[in-house]
């Protein structure tokens, strides 16, 4: 029972991390039907920036107050960096080919993914790199048999407000309304006077913002980064987005958590080396029996 609870905690924390990245995939897909393959690699570049900042500030040698300030600064800088980079990616690369057949932007996204990965390779090399251990791995629970560490707390403390804030933003602000309208029908949205290109730009920026936050959390809690981390985690996050119903915001959050749980419980009860195969097998089965994902509504193919 304790083991099960422990894996539940682990699954939930990694799951919310996947969810943060998945939101970037799902928002972009919802609005322009593009599988943005570069999103995982954007996350990787964010983590590299976080590594650079944390090492430059020397956070692991600071006291609690200094370290907290440094971490907040790292979050702000990395989120801004990823948001800007994602915004520029859309502005420079996808916007000029907005009306091309669907495969064209998809291949461009693959190209961007290669460029980002190549930049990561040049920036930090091909080996795994240790990320300074700033957050203590201290157990916050009184018992020894169940661990909920300061790192787990950090994940929850950062992801929950971000997701809540995003939900409020999309549901209640004017820009959020414009996003939903554009996702439903870009042409109609444009006819209603919505600046569709601006809305798409914001969507990319917000997706980048969340990926930036996820990248700092990843660095601080997993403590190893490499230029390939974007590819692997991006694939999981993308799977999460599809699992929840691609284009669906709560679906991405749910999908992320489901994948986190499948991975943690799977490694306990099925075997560590099979967890990845298990995730994708569940994905295939779900799509066969419920093609629109867990929360997605059935959409009719446009004629």
């Amino acid at each position, binding site marked *: 029972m304790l083991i099960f609870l422990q894996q539940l905690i682990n699954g939930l924390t990694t799951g919310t991390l996947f969810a943060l990245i998945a939101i970037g995939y799902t928002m972009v897909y919802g609005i322009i039907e593009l599988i943005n393959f570069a999103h995982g690699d954007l996350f990787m570049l964010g983590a590299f920036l976080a590594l650079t900042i944390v090492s430059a500030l020397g956070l692991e040698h600071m006291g609690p107050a200094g370290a907290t300030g440094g971490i907040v600064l790292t979050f702000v800088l990395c989120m801004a960096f990823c948001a800007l980079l994602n915004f520029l990616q859309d502005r420079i690369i996808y916007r000029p*080919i907005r009306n091309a057949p669907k*495969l064209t932007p998809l291949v*461009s996204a693959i190209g961007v993914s290669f*460029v980002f990965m190549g930049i990561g390779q040049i920036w930090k090399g091909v080996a795994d790199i240790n990320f300074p251990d700033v957050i203590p791995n201290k157990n916050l629970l009184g018992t020894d048999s169940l661990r909920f560490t300061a790192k787990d707390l950090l994940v929850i403390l950062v992801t929950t407000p971000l997701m809540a804030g995003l939900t409020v933003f999309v549901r209640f602000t004017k820009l959020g309304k414009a996003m939903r309208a554009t996702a439903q029908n870009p042409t109609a949205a444009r006819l209603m006077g919505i600046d569709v290109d601006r809305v798409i730009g914001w969507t990319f920026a917000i997706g980048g913002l969340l990926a930036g936050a996820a990248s700092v959390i990843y660095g601080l809690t997993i403590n190893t980064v490499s230029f390939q981390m974007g590819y692997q985690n991006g694939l999981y996050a993308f799977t999460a987005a599809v699992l929840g119903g691609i284009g669906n915001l709560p679906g991405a959050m749910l999908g992320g958590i489901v994948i986190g749980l499948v991975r943690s419980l799977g490694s306990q009860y099925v075997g560590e080396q099979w967890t990845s*195969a298990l995730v994708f097998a569940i994905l295939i089965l779900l*799509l*066969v029996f419920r093609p629109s994902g867990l929360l997605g509504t059935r*959409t009719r193919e446009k004629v």
Partner: protein
Amino acid sequence: MSRKTERWLALGTLLALVLFGLVASPRMGGQVKDILVFCILALGLNVVVGYAGLLQLGIAAFFGIGAYITGILTVTQFPFQWNFWPAMIAATIGSGVAGVLLAGPTLRLRGDYLAIVTLGFGEVIKFAIKNLENITNGSRALNPIPAPDSLLDWNGNFRWYYYLALGVLVLVVLLLRTLEDSRIGRAWFAIREDELAASCMGLNAAQVKLTAFALGAALAGLAGSIYAASLNQTGGPDSYTFNRSITVLCFLIIGGMGNIRGAIAGTFVLMGYDNILTPALDNWIQESGVSWRFSTFKLVVFGLALILMMRFRPEGIFPSRRAEQEAD
């Protein structure tokens, strides 16, 4: 390009490849042999993506299935110990069947969801190859795959596998040429252009897509079988990753989707860049005494090339006849 010049171009290329096999150094010949094998793989993917318009992101899985069926049927660690030739045929059929098994229940999915299922299937196969160690030997791979026969010096002289790959490639090209103008070929194009209209004209869309998927998978399996034989081993799980599937898709995009010339040209350009040009540039730079390597920038250059291509020439180097007409 008229059909006549096209035919002369094809014959000229074939002649050049035959002659190249005679004069090439073992290293260079081996590289081009790999390119020929990947041409078969690219042509298989082209049937699915180019002809039938179904986005398939897991072609490497079928490439791997072909390689491992060949391995399992030929190596000494299993009781089968077939000769390579029947194993090659079994690999082709087996991959095709795997394609049908995957596509049968999933073909009703909308475009992008099908792509995701193939992506997931690719990952499942990769992990299966990695983890089913008592069948696949995990990352140590199955080996040695014996030479097809003892009449020729298959392992001593690279030329035999080179000409095997070239010969199979020519047969595949002839088969696809015939199919392009046949009933099923036209059905593929019709489904690609407008599925609704095509099914209103009485085409069974699911069946048409299934044949494309099966043929694509079978050709990928054939390529995998030859690939494994020419390596003398199955290559291990890292040869059959998502990255490989994407790279083969890029061959088609760069070359020009939906036609044989494009698939072959794209494979030669990109694999030439990756396996021949980059090491050559590195050597050349090193000899001039600079401590700077081109291979560091290989990925960035490749990515930029894809982006620029999509911006300025999305139809590829050799657009298919239809894409050419649409551009006019």
